[in-house]
């Protein structure tokens, strides 16, 4: 889709302009979609959300268009308003721009001090950044302590009620506040931020955000689970629970966590820790199914990506095999940047909600993060560079997670030409084909044409086309494998290739619903099956182990 793709085409294309078009934001269309989706829930006695195609809705989603416009961004960035971070909002925004991002979300940690003191300070800082940089989208968000689980990005587009919604949401549903005793300014309703008695609050929180959209108080609200496997506390049933409670809000998770500089060796000025700061082991609130074994350690990253995403046929695939989208991203989680000379200010965060301005020591510090965009990018295909459209792009799954600018572009087209579908659908899409037809997949990768911020032009070595059958809602809500999901074809990228490379694959005589997705890498660290290797603590150069992951396309057979 080009930047000129705008709402006025609704009148020209009856299908896309109908009430079923989720990009149609007229209140009555929104309400009608939701009403009918609600009927679907009742009729099917199962949790089917508004973002999900119902049995009679065969409208293809994310139709392919030439010249897709991608917007690079980062939904996970901290400032001096987090107790463990240090930068000014303006510094993070300036760096995001320097490193090529079009959009970013400021996500300081939720908690009593943040809710009471930080929101009022970060809001004007964000507004000032928006005024200063008109062409960069600066979202206000929150790093929510999901009750009973890990952290998550929650964010809204700018709007009259946006800050009020964020403030109320945090006050009522942040796990830190819920678990803090009343005497210390919290709610004292759950034992720990991560204990299982928080799980119902997480679902209520997501329904609250959904209700704000339904009531028209915000155009859209999104939640993405951050570093989901880091401490083993996001169980599969919690992930499914969030998705099903509010599928238009809880849309996915970090496929790759931030802190990608954390494993750089001490000799190179690094912290010599776990890539992504993935250094933990099971604790009291961990899901027992994630315990490390002789074959794998879910608490470590693999090729820089979270185990849930990196493991072929793992947690992510087990959710996709249900036929439901769950979008993965890559972020910086930028708190303190590798090689930077600044240290936090001396203000008491607990008492003021801010650490104050950072100070420059002139001495390189041992930090584990990159600046926003310096290493990690979440590319979103959006109709325009607008706050709501980029969020809609994220929600539609038209998203590619990329490390180290491994690729400059990705054009995926999935279509059944024998059905008369010449257009097809793209990343994050859903198409409907006749049983027995051939489904053609064309992949066009724009190879990196310039050095990344590690100083080298990255070389894509291969692209894997991965596919697995859609087997329906998981009977076991803690299911974490999709044994039939496989690499169906690996495409080697010729050594001297420049510009664009193009690959095709045909699924012949398709007789059951399936999904497909793409990943690619620089080929430096692979196991014998071509999968990413577990990252080694303190011995990992993030610039020589680069991957991209594209979100899935669903092919329904009718």
């Amino acid at each position: 889709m080009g930047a000129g793709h705008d709402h006025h085409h609704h009148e020209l294309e009856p299908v896309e302009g109908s009430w079923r078009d989720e990009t149609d934001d007229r209140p009555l269309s929104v309400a009608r979609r939701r009403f009918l989706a609600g009927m679907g829930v009742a009729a099917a006695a199962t949790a089917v959300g508004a973002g999900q195609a119902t049995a009679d809705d065969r409208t293809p989603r994310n139709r392919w268009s030439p010249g897709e416009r991608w917007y690079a961004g980062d939904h996970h960035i901290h400032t001096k308003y987090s107790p463990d971070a240090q930068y000014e909002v303006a510094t993070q925004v300036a760096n995001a721009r320097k490193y090529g991002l079009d959009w970013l979300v400021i996500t300081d940690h939720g908690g009593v001090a943040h809710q009471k003191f930080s929101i009022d300070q970060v809001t004007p800082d964000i507004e000032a950044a928006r005024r200063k940089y008109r062409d960069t989208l600066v979202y206000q968000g929150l790093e929510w302590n999901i009750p009973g689980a890990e952290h998550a990005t929650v964010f809204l587009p700018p709007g009259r009620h946006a800050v009020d919604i964020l403030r109320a949401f945090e006050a009522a549903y942040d796990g830190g506040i819920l678990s803090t005793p009343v005497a210390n300014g919290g709610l004292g309703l759950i034992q720990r931020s991560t204990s299982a008695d928080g799980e119902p609050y997480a679902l209520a929180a997501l329904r609250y955000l959904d209700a704000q959209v339904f009531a028209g108080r915000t155009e859209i609200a999104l939640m993405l689970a951050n570093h989901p496997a880091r401490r083993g506390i996001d169980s599969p049933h919690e992930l499914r629970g969030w998705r099903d409670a509010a599928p238009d809000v809880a849309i996915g998770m970090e496929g790759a966590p931030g802190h990608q500089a954390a494993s750089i060796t001490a000799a190179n000025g690094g912290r010599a820790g776990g890539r992504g700061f993935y250094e933990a082991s099971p604790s009291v609130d961990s899901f027992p199914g994630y315990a490390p074994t002789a074959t794998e350690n879910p608490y470590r990253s693999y090729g820089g990506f979270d185990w849930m995403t990196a493991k072929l046929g793992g947690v992510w695939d087990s959710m996709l095999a249900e036929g439901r989208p769950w979008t993965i991203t890559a972020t910086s989680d930028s708190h303190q940047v590798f090689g930077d000379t600044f240290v936090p200010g001396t203000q008491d965060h607990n008492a003021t909600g801010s650490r104050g301005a950072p100070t420059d020591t002139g001495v390189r510090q041992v930090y584990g993060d990159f600046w926003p965009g310096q290493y990690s990018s979440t590319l979103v295909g959006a109709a325009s560079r607008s706050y709501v459209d980029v969020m809609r792009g994220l929600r539609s799954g038209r998203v590619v997670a990329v490390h180290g600018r491994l690729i400059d572009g990705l054009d995926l087209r999935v279509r059944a030409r024998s059905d008369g579908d010449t257009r097809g659908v793209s990343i994050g899409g859903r198409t409907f084909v006749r049983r027995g037809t051939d489904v053609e997949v064309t992949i066009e990768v724009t190879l990196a044409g310039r050095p990344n911020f590690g100083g080298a032009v990255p070389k894509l070595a291969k692209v894997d086309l991965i596919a697995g059958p859609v087997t329906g809602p998981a009977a076991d809500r803690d299911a974490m494998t999709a044994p039939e999901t496989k690499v169906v074809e690996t495409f080697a990228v010729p050594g001297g290739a420049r510009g664009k490379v193009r690959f095709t694959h045909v699924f012949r005589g398709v007789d059951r619903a399936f999904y497909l997705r793409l990943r690619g890498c620089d080929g430096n660290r692979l196991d014998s099956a071509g999968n990413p290797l577990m990252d080694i603590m303190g011995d990992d150069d993030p610039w020589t182990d680069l991957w991209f992951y594209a979100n899935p396309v669903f092919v329904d057979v009718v």
Partner: protein
Amino acid sequence: MSRWFGVGCPPVAGAAAHADHVLLSSVDGLGADFVCTHVDRTGAVARTALAVRLGGSPAGALTPLAGPPDGGRCVRFPGQDALTGTLTAAEIVAASAIDEVVGVGVPVAPDSAVDTLGFLRPTFAGERLVLLVEPAAGGVLRPVEIADPHECCGGH
């Protein structure tokens, strides 16, 4: 003869090394040769439970257990003090109660070098005490559990 008992677990928080110190203090005086944590998931909210192995008859009301808790994580175990610096897998097994050193995704030979990092928390798989290790920089192995994993946001 030595027997296993469940004992009351004090509230613990923070990094493993700190929490373990609190746990060990709480069983001071019992003379336990094994001190293990495990997770009790029988209630609505999981809790950390503590088990010890004692020789002879303990004083006070302790809950007898049939054996080591499955998955029990040993904060103290016989031979622990001898395991410092870099040792081979065979040396670890010979010098301590650890029955086996198991690598994550890598084979472990008797002469494989393990950098203990001064902090080992082997776990029980049934009756066997297993130390899980993973590849580390410099071609050696290191324990999967480390004393001071990065804590984000005050450990929320």
